[in-house]
C-alpha cells in the first residue's frame, strides 16, 4: 500500500519533471519557458519530499520559485528576447544533435543501470526525526570547510555581478559642470554639406 503510493507519486513527478524541462527549452514563448521551469522546480521538490528531505524541498520552493524565478520572469519580460532568431539554426543541426543525444542516452542506459550501483533505498525514520537538525549539524561540523567556501562563492558572485552591472551612480539629474565646460564644438554640432538640389 505504502510503497505503491510512493512509487506512483515518484513516477508521476519524475515524468512531469522530464516533460516540463523539455518544454523549457522548446517552448516558443520565453515567459512560458520560465513558467515551465517553475514546474520543474516544483516536481523536484516533490522528489526531495519522497526522500524525507523536507527542508531542501521547501527551500527549493521558497528560494527558487519564490525569489529567483520571479526575478527571472521580470527580466525576461523586460528584455523582450526574440527566441525565433536564436533558433534559426536549430533545425539545421537537429539531426546530428539528435544522433549524438541518442547515442549518449543509449550509452548511459547501458552503463547506469541500477544493478551497477548496488544501492539500497534509504532507511525510513520515525516521526520525531528532524531533517533540519541533521542537516544543520552536518553542515556546521563535518562540512564546515565546504560551507564556508560556499559563502565565499556567494561573495564572489555578488562582487562580480555588481562590478559588471554597476556603472557608477546614475539617475541623478544633477549637472556635471566640468564636463559641460570641457565640451568641444565638434561633440555637439555636426556640419553636413547638403547639396542644394538633388543630383540625378
Amino acid at each position, binding site marked *: 500500500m505504502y510503497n505503491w503510493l510512493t512509487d506512483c507519486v515518484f513516477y508521476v513527478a519524475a515524468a512531469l519533471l522530464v516533460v516540463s524541462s523539455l518544454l523549457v527549452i522548446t517552448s516558443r514563448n520565453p515567459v512560458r519557458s520560465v513558467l515551465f521551469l517553475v514546474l520543474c522546480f516544483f516536481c523536484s521538490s516533490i522528489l526531495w519530499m519522497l526522500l524525507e528531505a523536507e527542508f531542501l524541498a521547501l527551500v527549493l520552493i521558497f528560494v527558487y520559485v519564490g525569489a529567483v524565478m520571479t526575478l527571472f520572469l521580470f527580466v525576461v519580460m523586460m528584455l523582450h528576447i526574440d527566441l525565433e532568431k536564436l533558433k534559426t539554426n536549430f533545425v539545421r543541426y537537429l539531426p546530428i544533435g539528435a544522433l549524438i543525444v541518442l547515442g549518449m542516452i543509449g550509452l*548511459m542506459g547501458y*552503463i*547506469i543501470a541500477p*544493478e*551497477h*550501483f*548496488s*544501492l539500497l533505498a534509504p532507511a525510513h525514520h520515525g516521526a520525531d526525526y528532524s531533517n533540519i537538525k541533521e542537516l544543520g*549539524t552536518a553542515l556546521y*561540523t*563535518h*562540512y*564546515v*570547510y*565546504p560551507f564556508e*567556501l*560556499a559563502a*565565499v*562563492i556567494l*561573495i*564572489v*558572485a555578488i*562582487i*562580480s*555581478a555588481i*562590478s*559588471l552591472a554597476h*556603472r557608477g551612480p546614475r539617475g541623478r539629474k544633477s549637472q556635471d559642470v566640468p564636463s559641460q565646460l570641457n565640451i568641444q564644438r565638434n561633440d555637439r554640432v555636426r556640419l553636413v554639406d547638403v547639396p542644394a538640389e538633388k543630383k540625378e
Partner: protein
Amino acid sequence: MNFVIPDVVPAIPEIFMLAMTCIVLLSGLFLQRRYPSLPYMLSLLALVGAVVLTVALYKHTTEITFHNSYIIDHIGSILKVTILGTCFFVFLYCRRYVADRNILNTEFYVLCLFSVLGMMVLVSAYSFISLYLGLEIFSLPLYALIALQRDAARSAEAAMKYFIMGAVASGMLLYGLSMIYGATKSVDIAVVSQVLTSVPASQNLILVFGLVFVVVGVAFKLGGAPFHMWVPDVYEGAPSAVTLFIATAPKIAAFAMAVRLLVDMMPLYQVEWQHMLIVVALVSMAIGNFVAIVQTNLKRMLAYSSIAHMGYMSLGLLSGNAQGYSAASFYIIVYTIMSLGAFGMVTILSGKGFEMETINDYKGLNSRNPWLAFIMLLLMFSMAGVPPIAGFFAKLGVIESLVEAHLVWLAVLALVFAIIGAYYYLRVVKVMYFDAPEHQSRIDTTSMDTRIAISANGLFILVLGIFPGIIFNLCKAAF
C-alpha cells in the same frame, strides 16, 4: 554527536588570503579616493604574506584536516607558492595597464585575489566538495574579469563564451564525480582511492564512465584539445592584463586538479586515463602547433602555443611513473613562468590607447628597445625548447619519462611537433630582430618596476636552464 574542532593551522594561508581580500575590497571602497594605489599595495602585501605563511607553515609532512576535506603536502605547497608568485608578477605587470583603461581598479585586484584563493583551495582540496568549490571560486572571478573592460564588445563576447563553456565543463566534471560517488559512496579522495582497490567488477563500468567525464573536465580547465576551443577566443578577447592572469596561474590550479583526481585518486585506472590523455596530448600538440603558425595576433598565437604546451605537459602525466609526474610538474611551472613573461611583455608594452597585440607590432623591437627584445628572445627560445634555456629541460624531462614508460613512438611524435612549433616562435624573433620597425619611437610605456620584473622573469628562465636542479629537485621530491 562528538565533534572535534578541526585543526585550522594548515589552512592559515587561505584564511589570511580571504581576510586580506576583504580588506582590499573595503580599502578600495572607502580609501581609494585618498590613496589611489592602496588596493594595489595591499594586494601585493597579501600575496607576499600568503607565500611566507605557506612556506613557514609547511612542516614537510602530509597533513589532512577539516574532516578529509583539506590536504597540505609537498606538491601542494610548491604549486601554491608558484601560483602566489605568479600572481605577484601579474600585478606588477598589470598596474599601469589597468590604470590606463576603463577597468575598475579595486575590483580587478579583488577578483584576481579571489581567484587565487580558489586556486589555493583547489590545490589543497582532498574531497570532491572542496575541490568543486575551489574550482568555482577560481573560475567565477575569471568570467567577470574578462568582461571587466565594459566598453569592449570583444571582451564581453569572450566572457560569455568562457562562461558558458566553463559551465558545461563544470557540469560534466560534477556529473563524473557524482558517478564515482555513486559507486564508492564517498566524496573523500582518500577514501575513494581506498575503496577502489576492492571495488566489485560490476561497478567498473560506472567508474570508467565517471572517469571519462572527470578527464574531460580536467582537460577543459587545462585547455587541452578537443576541449580547447575557448582558449584562443578568450585569450584574444580579454584585455591583455586579464589574459596574462588567465594564461598563467589557472594552469597550475588545473594541473593540481589533475594530480588530485587522477594520480592521487585513481592510480588503479591509470591505463584508462592514460589512453584518454594520449589522445588529448596528441590532438593538443597537433592543433596547437599547426594552427599557431598562421596566426597574426600574438595573443592568439600564444593561446595556441599554450594548447600545445598543455599537450607536452600531459605527456608527463600520462607516462604514469613518478619521474613523469615530477617532469610534468616541472613542465607546468616552467611553462607558467614563460607564459607569464610572454603575456607580461604584451601587457607592459601596450600603452594608453594602443595594444601591442599583433606580431607586426613587434617589428624591429630590437632597435626600439634592445633589452626587452632580448628578454622576449629568451622567452621565445625557451618556449621553442632551445637549450640551454629552461624550456628545453622541461621538454627533455617529459620525453625522458615517456621513454621510461616505453612510449617511444609518442616521444618521437612529440619531438616532431616541437620542431614544427619552433617555427612560429622563431618568427617572432625574426620579426623583432630583422624587420624594420613601423614606428621609430623608443618604447616608453614601461616603468622601472616592470622593467626589473620582466628582466628577472626572463633571466630566471635562463638561470633555470643552467641550473634546472633548483626546481627540478623540488618536483622530484614530491612524487
